[in-house]
């Protein structure tokens, strides 16, 4: 009787341990390369291995950055104030750590602890990545390519929101002056591309044009860009283009405005939008980041959401 009970108890403990073990292993897999994880310590023997490790490290960094978005948002806000930084060679983790230290009083003790830990880890990752890149220069390119061809949805750690990545529909169109614009070239040339959908007789859309122009200038300094898509100008409607140009000129907006055929992928996409203005944030690989922002960015709420998405995209791009 007693034996049976002891056995049952032991068995139960064993089961719990087994489950726990499963759990830990899963966790390890998810948080690959975390502090004491293997990725940090293992030395790659071949370029192949170096590439995997490299990717893993970057993944881990992105995971950290998307883990506590609100808190990071605070940090990014601080970095915006003292934007002088980010020279290419400087370690991004150290930079963040510096920012966190500077703005120490803004965080609770707990937040500060977490941030310090995370930024230190990012710093370590960055060092390791730099080391790898130095040893195996070829992985730089390969890892970039890998990023680009990553199938949608497989990369669940990157997006700041829960959803899987959605590609911005590809297009080949023209700007209002007739220059050819290709979506893949446009997106890959920018760390972040803000795409604003508007139409000429939409009052809130026209109201935000000058703000968008200012944002475009600001983004250009950070390696990003902004384009407008006027739904009236699709298919190259000449009257509509002239009217759009007129309004843009009156509002002093100089950024690129693009049109394409309405029956293409991007054309259908545009026609399916029925709330104007709507603004999308697109990353270097052409993925839509977060949810589209409905309403003019002249409103505080919309402006904040947009800034947050931009910062996240730039941060993820630098990682």
């Amino acid at each position, binding site marked *: 009787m007693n034996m049976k009970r002891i056995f049952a108890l032991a068995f139960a403990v064993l089961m719990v341990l087994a489950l726990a073990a499963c759990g830990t292993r899963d966790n390890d897999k998810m948080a690959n390369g975390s502090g004491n994880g293997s990725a940090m310590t293992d030395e790659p023997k071949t370029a192949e291995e170096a590439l995997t490790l490299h990717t893993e490290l970057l993944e881990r960094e992105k995971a950290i950055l998307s883990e506590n978005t609100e808190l990071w948002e605070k940090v990014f806000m601080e970095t915006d104030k003292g934007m002088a930084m980010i020279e290419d060679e400087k370690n991004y983790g150290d930079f963040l750590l510096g920012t966190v230290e500077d703005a120490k009083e803004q965080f609770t003790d707990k937040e500060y602890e977490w941030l310090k830990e995370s930024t230190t880890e990012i710093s370590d990752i960055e060092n390791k990545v730099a080391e790898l890149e130095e040893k195996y220069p070829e992985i730089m390119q390969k890892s970039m390519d890998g990023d680009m061809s990553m199938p949608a949805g497989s990369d669940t750690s990157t997006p700041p929101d829960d959803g899987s990545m959605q590609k911005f529909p590809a297009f080949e169109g023209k700007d209002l002056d007739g220059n050819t614009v290709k979506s893949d070239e446009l997106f890959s040339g920018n760390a972040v591309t803000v795409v604003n959908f508007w139409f000429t*007789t939409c*009052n809130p859309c*026209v*109201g935000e044009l000058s703000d968008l122009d200012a944002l475009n200038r600001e983004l250009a300094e950070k390696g990003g860009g902004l384009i407008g898509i006027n739904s009236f100008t699709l298919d190259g409607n000449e009257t509509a283009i002239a009217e759009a140009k007129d*309004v843009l000129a*009156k*509002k002093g907006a100089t950024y690129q405005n693009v049109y394409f055929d309405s029956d293409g992928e991007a054309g259908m996409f545009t*026609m*399916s939008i*029925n*709330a104007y203005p*709507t603004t999308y944030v697109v990353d270097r690989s052409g993925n839509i980041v977060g*949810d*589209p*922002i*409905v*309403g003019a960015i002249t*409103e505080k*709420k*919309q402006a904040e*959401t947009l800034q947050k998405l931009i910062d996240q995209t730039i941060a993820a791009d630098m990682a």
Partner: protein
Amino acid sequence: MGKKFSGVSQTMSRFRGWIQAGATLLTNLHLPNFLKGGLYQGAGKTVCVPGLNCYSCPAASGACPIGAFQAVVGSSKFSFSYYITGFLILLGVLLGRFICGFLCPFGWFQELLHKIPTKKLSTKKLKPLTYLKYAVLLVMVFLLPAFLVNDVGMGDPFFCKYLCPQGVLEGAIPLSLANAGIRAALGKLFTWKFSILLSVIVLSVLFYRPFCKWLCPLGAFYALFNKVSLFQMKVDENKCISCGKCARACKMDVDVTKTPNHTECIRCGMCIRACPTNAVSFRYGFGNGKEAPKKTTMEESK
């Protein structure tokens, strides 16, 4: 003949609720859009519907005349809309405020709310407020959108933006339920307009059609045409026994025996049903039908 039409009048007013329901459905035919969270984008939206019905309602089959008027007037190209004004004059002459009583979805909405059993209050003493709607029509629908413009000559649709409760009821609420992006965009303006909607709802329970009486610019426009509308009220003086039941039954505070085509009359026909001698009826036709009785009968048969 006259008797027959009075029978039609009785039936029409008796089944008014169903006609209102039918009109609301026809005005908002694209019901699946409520689930999709998008709008109907077909050519039907070129034409206005007769009642106050937001064109940003997912199901809306046409444009709202008031919204469309402001859209045209507020654009940089035009500062007056002949298209909408012409359309409204036609409707005003053809139907007048019959539209309010029978076809307007927002009127029906207020009436349904009024069916909630509570203590009901009279609006007779608030008569001066009925002139407010003309000010709304002139200032918020026409003057401000047309002349208070930004640097590119565009004006805000003031009535839609700051006052219209129908936009929140039909547009903002269903769309924000179905569409996360729109939900995220709701701001201060929504709070303001939602409070207006709430006030109208509460007032509608206590008073009969408060929005129609005091604020509706569309009702104001049709009211101006009530006197010349082909659709009119007729009181047969030979049958009338001056009992005053019709005036007491009227929830729009009109005495049909004195002013059959009063600006406030929405042709709901409550007086027709209240009349013990069938002296009150609808009449449809040119003129006022008083000069030549023979002619009147002929026109009634149309």
